[in-house]
């Protein structure tokens, strides 16, 4: 189970009224390498993985939900006061037609989130390598969004999130090292 703390992991501030950025940020909300895909991927892999790395997947998967909240807050702040005309100018006309200002799990191009974005192969090495790749792809996505954004306060939050991807990638690499270790050598059957 989880306990909920009613605050964000890192403060989110948006200083410019630029709804166009919401269209790009939604990539990290419901995209293939976004925070939803990350959280669901890690929390689902926990069940069948060796017990030494279950705790890591729980911790990182939980943190990804905290990141999801931050992204949602950014998107909401950027769109909540936009008129339909402003939504259309920002490239969000189709989103407005379908969802009004509601957030939805789709990527920057409007493709809805799908479970085919994630995998649980059951092989611990293959699963952890996928997790490492996912962190690197999320890091790259944050870089491209930062390149598209000229809002310093928003970028401050995005830089924090990018750094967390770097740390998570390293933790998953350490998990692979734990699984490679020669521990009990061999159990005789």
């Amino acid at each position, binding site marked *: 189970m989880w306990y909920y703390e009613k605050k964000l992991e890192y403060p989110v501030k948006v200083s410019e009224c630029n709804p166009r950025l919401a269209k790009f940020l939604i990539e990290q909300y419901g995209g293939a390498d976004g925070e939803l895909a990350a959280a669901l991927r890690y929390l689902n892999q926990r069940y069948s993985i*060796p017990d030494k790395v279950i705790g890591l997947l729980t911790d990182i998967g939980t943190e990804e939900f905290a990141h999801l909240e931050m992204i949602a807050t950014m998107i909401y702040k950027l769109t909540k006061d936009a008129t339909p005309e402003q939504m259309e100018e920002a490239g969000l006309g189709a989103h407005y037609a379908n969802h009004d200002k509601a957030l939805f799990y789709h990527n920057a191009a409007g493709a809805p989130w799908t479970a085919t974005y994630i995998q649980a192969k059951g*092989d611990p*090495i293959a699963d952890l390598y996928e997790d490492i790749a996912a962190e690197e792809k999320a890091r790259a996505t944050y870089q491209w969004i930062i390149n598209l954004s000229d809002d310093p306060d928003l970028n401050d939050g995005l830089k924090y999130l990018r750094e967390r991807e770097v740390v998570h990638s390293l933790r998953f690499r350490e998990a692979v090292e734990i699984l490679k270790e*020669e521990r009990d050598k061999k*159990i005789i059957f």
Partner: protein
Amino acid sequence: MFTQYKFWEPYSSPYDPCPPMTVKSYSTPPQLYINFQPPGLAQFEPRAALYHGTLWKELFSPYPGPDKRGDVDE
């Protein structure tokens, strides 16, 4: 030298509905232990290389694991 398979004992509850599998295994093939293939690795004879799927002895990864195979080809 590394082992090609690792074994672990997952938690089993006294209330599990099915008889527990007390030991589980996963494969840790040779490529996990080298970043790059060093030059001059020992090679199989041509015919053995065809059977093994690789020219280099140190890159061979037997599958399935020894518990299901019954030989000592590691």
